[in-house]
């Protein structure tokens, strides 16, 4: 059992390193036409600037500048790969699934890469960092919905995003 946990942690460590490499180099979008928000997790100091071009309530393009711990880097890398083409509802659903995984209430996610975070439930101080891209997307969709009143709103409950706040 101990070996299985150790092997899983080793696999997680390697996965995180690969995802982290994806976002090491900043990829920024011009603002406008994109919009940009900066969020950070007060508990661990992780910081993310997320740029997104949203059209018709769908993410068309994502940019980022990540200065976060390994978890925030990894979730940003996954979001950057997966989010283009998705709408607020789809991203809200995945954000809630990740939150449930971090809380230890679920083990599955429609983005299977997120399932590696089941091992992180015992490290609550990092959960805020992992949720940063979803918190940023929430704000970006909020802003976009002001301009596009028919748009759906992404709403990951703020109370559950430990320490995350607008900077």
């Amino acid at each position, binding site marked *: 059992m101990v070996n299985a946990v150790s092997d899983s*942690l*080793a696999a*997680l*460590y390697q996965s*995180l*390193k690969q995802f982290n*490499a994806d976002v*090491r*180099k*900043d990829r920024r979008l011009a603002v406008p036409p994109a919009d940009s928000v900066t969020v950070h997790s007060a*508990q*661990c*100091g*992780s*910081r993310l600037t997320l740029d997104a071009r949203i059209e018709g309530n769908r993410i068309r393009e994502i940019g980022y500048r990540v*200065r*976060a*711990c*390994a*978890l*925030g*880097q990894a979730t940003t890398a996954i979001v950057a790969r997966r989010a283009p083409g998705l709408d607020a509802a789809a991203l809200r659903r995945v954000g809630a699934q990740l939150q449930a995984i971090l809380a230890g209430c679920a083990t599955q996610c429609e983005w299977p890469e997120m399932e590696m975070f089941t091992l992180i439930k015992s*490290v609550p*101080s*990092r959960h805020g*960092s992992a949720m940063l891209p979803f918190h940023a997307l929430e704000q970006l969709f909020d802003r976009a919905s002001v301009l596009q009143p028919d748009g759906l709103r992404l709403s990951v409950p703020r109370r559950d995003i430990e320490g995350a706040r607008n900077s």
Partner: protein
Amino acid sequence: MSIQDIIVVGGGIGGTMTANNLVAKLYPEIRAGKARVSLISNNPWHYYKPAFMYVAFGMFYKNELRRPLHSLLRPEVNLLLDEVEGFDFKASRLRLGSGNDHRYDYLVVSTGCIPSPERIPGLQEAGDHFYQHDPAMQLYRKLSTIESGRIFIGVTFPKTANVPHQCGIAPMETTLMLDDFLRRRGVREKIEILYTYPTVAQLLRNCLFLQRPVGEALPSVFASKDIRYQRGFTLARVDPETKVAHSEEGESVEFDILMQTPPIRAVDAVLASGVSQAANDEGWLPTDRDTLQLEGFPNTFVMGDTVDLPISKAGGSCHNQSPVICDNIAGLMRVGDTVATYDGKVQAIAQMGLEAGMPLWYDYDSDVIPTPATKIGGLMRKAFNRGVYWSVARGLI
């Protein structure tokens, strides 16, 4: 055509080797009177900072670990002994303590970091460290006279995510050196060594070292030397009266000597520049991971301890950053663009006890692969300490 002014700030290993490397790189322009390289330092001495940890064990003395800065610089380097009091990155100007104002075309910021034990209540009064000469001497006096009790070793990380503490391997090195030192003194059996590592945001999980492969190798190394170790001790405060260290995790441990890697921050002028976004007013400058340019200021480069990169704050980082910066300044001057990329490479020879050493290297993608400590590794480290280092500072190797 006006002369291009390139200014390097900081006379430590990063600034010294970079000033020399810039002269080598830009020699045609310098000979033609089209470029000038200046180094500004507030200290006429250059210190081999890694030797401070040897001072704590009585193995290095002040005049062995320093040289006059001018003696390490190529003659083409314009050395200015002055204090930079203000960086105006927007206007490309420096305000100096002498009252002078310097405009630059290109700037390299290599101002290091400052140990700040006062940032943890009680640590200044009751703790010791080896990251500066005088504190290292104070620690030596204690280590050379303690007869029994507990030596508590701890590490404090910056609060800024993914920014490591000064010289990542030093706490482990000094723990092993301490074990040897106390055995030589014949008091090891009466002194408990307790190595601790904090729960920090940078880590994926609680461990004994920042990188997983080394962290996994440490327990057997420590066990073979009867060194106790403990994960998850993040120093919150120290009670100097009772000599008790209290952790953020809620634990309290008594000590006779507290050897703590202290909090660190950037120098005052960098803090005051207003450019840093680092947590806890630590002042690390936002640095492009590839080009090493200060973000938003393409004519300014950052290196060494002052960066916000996830890379060890150590001379082994400067050694690999310096050529990238020199190439990029030359690229900007000659073809109008940066031409080199930093891959996060760091190398060193870890001191594993008083006689053994372990060569190590890593980069953004690859961790240190621990190898057995050997006598030949120890000889390599001695050679570096006693001679090779000065050639590195001169930009010769």
